[in-house]
């Protein structure tokens, strides 16, 4: 795809350019890891500060953390069910928090002010590698959840309610990670591109509503990813009667 470079420093638009770090035969996208470390660092800092001195009457950051915890618990409980939601709450919560902070970080932090030799900083979720990694983790999780909860009876799910469903259910195992990863990747990348193009065309005022829309989309995408992950796990552990 090459690159689209424009004159304004804020409005540079580069698609598919990466800062490659080489490790022997392997190469990784440096800019993705740099931003993901910032995201993880921010999350850990928030968590460490908020849980340092927890009390029964919550104060300060503890309130925020408890709100998040409660939100994630409700999400996991409604999708996975009362029985096993506790085992999967940390995974669902980590997905939600990581994607949410990545998306908002990509939208709110003016990364374009930092120049890299190649590629540009942005939300880690705007890179297909990240979203496919997350989606594959979800796939592994629901297989593991189903097999560990029901053993080989998990495969009854493929012929439920009738064996006619078998091919569809097998196809679903491939479409689930595909749709999860491409939905997130497409939304976040498209949002970054729309904002960049608008900033290039009309550098004042006009991009602001689109940026707000971007924040909204980012939050929604994090919620959708976490909810669907929880739903897939819940589907795998559900008992058929």
């Amino acid at each position, binding site marked *: *795809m*090459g690159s*689209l470079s424009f004159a304004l420093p804020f409005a540079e638009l580069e*698609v*598919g*350019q*990466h800062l*490659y770090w080489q*490790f022997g035969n*392997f*190469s*990784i*996208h440096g800019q*993705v*890891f740099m931003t*993901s470390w910032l995201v*993880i660092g921010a*999350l*850990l800092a928030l*968590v*460490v500060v*908020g*849980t340092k001195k*927890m*009390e*029964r009457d*919550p104060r300060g950051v*503890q309130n925020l*953390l*408890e709100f998040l*915890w*409660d939100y*994630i*618990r409700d999400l996991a409980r409604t999708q996975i069910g009362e029985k096993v939601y506790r085992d999967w*709450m*940390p*995974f669902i*919560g*980590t*997905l939600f*928090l*990581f994607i949410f902070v990545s998306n908002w970080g990509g939208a709110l932090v003016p990364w374009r002010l930092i120049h890299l030799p190649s590629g540009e900083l942005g939300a*880690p979720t705007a*890179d*297909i*590698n*990240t979203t*496919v*990694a*997350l989606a*594959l*983790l979800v796939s592994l999780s629901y297989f593991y959840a189903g097999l560990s909860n029901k053993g080989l009876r998990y495969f009854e799910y493929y012929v439920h309610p009738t064996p006619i469903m078998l091919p569809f259910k097998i196809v679903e195992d491939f479409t689930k990670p595909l749709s999860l990863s491409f939905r997130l990747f497409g939304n976040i990348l498209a949002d970054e591109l729309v904002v960049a193009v608008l900033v290039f065309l009309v550098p004042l005022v006009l991009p602001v509503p689109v940026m707000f829309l971007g924040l909204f989309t980012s939050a929604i995408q994090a919620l959708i990813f976490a909810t669907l992950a929880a739903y897939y796990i819940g589907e795998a552990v559900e008992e058929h009667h």
Partner: protein
Amino acid sequence: MTSLLLFGAGGLFDFDATLPLMAVQVVLLTFILNALFFKPVGRVVEEREGYVTTSRAEAKQKIAEAERLEADLRDQLKDARLAAQKVITEAEQDSDKLYREALSLATAEANAAREQARREIDSQRESALNQIKADADKLGDLIVERLLAAK
């Protein structure tokens, strides 16, 4: 823009070692967040939920206890009021009886005294009348004697 290179280096869908490394990173983050965030916050929240539940149960128990005691006291109060009412009525009846008794006793005494007085008056009047009659008879006899003597 001339080359539509989607996969491989420089493409939009450039898969490389970023994918597995990111997966490992997210799994590690899951474990770290579980230890630093989900477990401790969950413990605090659930402790509070337990505390609220037990406190509420205790409060409900106390309310029930208080209501029971209140009902008891109300019953006792009602009984006491009834007893007091009874005592008052009895006392009123007693005093009434005593009054009547005293009144009838006094009336009887007064009647007896009056009767006696009347009887005394009657007897005195009778004796006075007899005296007068005797005196009149004597005087009459005297007059008759004198008249006879004057003749």
